[in-house]
């Protein structure tokens, strides 16, 4: 255990202030007290070094993560057209529109093309009967 003189910091108090010291958030007097403690306590000096080391490793690890290619350009494009939906949303809406369009076209194809199962079955029904919804009643009454 390091001997504590008058006005010196104990290790406990030192470590409570260590983060603020490393972050340069202490006032001059506080910094001087810390430096004085460092001179006497190798364990706390090592502790400070470890914390600095962790901070440096963390900073390097985060900063080395690659940024997506073209991000800056996409941000600029979006700033030029601020009211346009984001690309993802646009693609999603286009996909929904395409599915609806395909479904509608398929339905028309099945019901209109001569010779298709639907038109063969109801070939005796006029188009006006088809339209007014009476197609299901007509065969029973004919």
């Amino acid at each position, binding site marked *: 255990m390091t001997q504590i003189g008058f006005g010196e910091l104990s290790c406990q108090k030192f470590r409570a202030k260590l983060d603020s010291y490393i972050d340069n958030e202490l006032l001059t007097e506080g910094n001087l007290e810390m430096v004085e403690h460092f001179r006497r306590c190798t364990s706390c000096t090592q502790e400070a070094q*470890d914390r600095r080391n*962790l901070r440096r490793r963390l*900073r390097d690890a985060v900063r080395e993560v690659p940024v997506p290619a073209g991000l800056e350009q996409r941000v600029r494009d979006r700033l030029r057209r601020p009211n346009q939906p984001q690309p993802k949303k646009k693609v999603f809406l286009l996909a929904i529109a395409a599915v609806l369009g395909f479904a509608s076209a398929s339905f028309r194809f099945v019901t209109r093309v001569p010779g298709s199962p639907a038109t063969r079955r109801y070939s005796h029904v006029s188009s006006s009967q088809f339209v007014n919804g009476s197609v299901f009643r007509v065969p029973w009454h004919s």
Partner: protein
Amino acid sequence: MCGDQSPEERFEIEAMPHLNDLFRTALRMTGERGQAEDVTQEVYLQAWRSFKRFEAGTNCRAWLYKILFHCVSHQRRKGFRFPLLKENEEFLVANLVQPAAVAQEITDGEILAALDDLPSEFRSVVLLVDVEEFAYKEVAEILAIPTGTVMSRLSRGRGLLRTHLAELARTYGIGKTRRKDTRS
């Protein structure tokens, strides 16, 4: 100095250089690259819309980060919720967490994973102070919390990070006896 510059030019000079850092912070806060990109785009869009209100010469970087954390919390409300922590001002106690050196064997990926495992309240403060090197007062402004809360969250976040990495180091057989004889 910038009286004769257009808003576009000022925005280009003051805001655009921080794009990559904002994306990386967004990535650590959201955990997903697509979401991080959406958030980054949203930050710049909001910043541009309110850029007229931004005072030239003030801290544009801190202002952008403030918007970023607003967007992140908005996204979180829309999507899923992180468990909220009870704020506890155990500043002194938290500082006494057994520290451990970061062993060289621990990779950057493992450090990032340990960071991502922190509760978001702690992670945001650790990112802003340790990675982005903001002062406590600026972090308090960005996150709209008192400076004392910044200090306590930082201390607890760093403590958790050290503990996590120390456990990881032990699995590699590193640092088993290191602390016993060095503490005074």
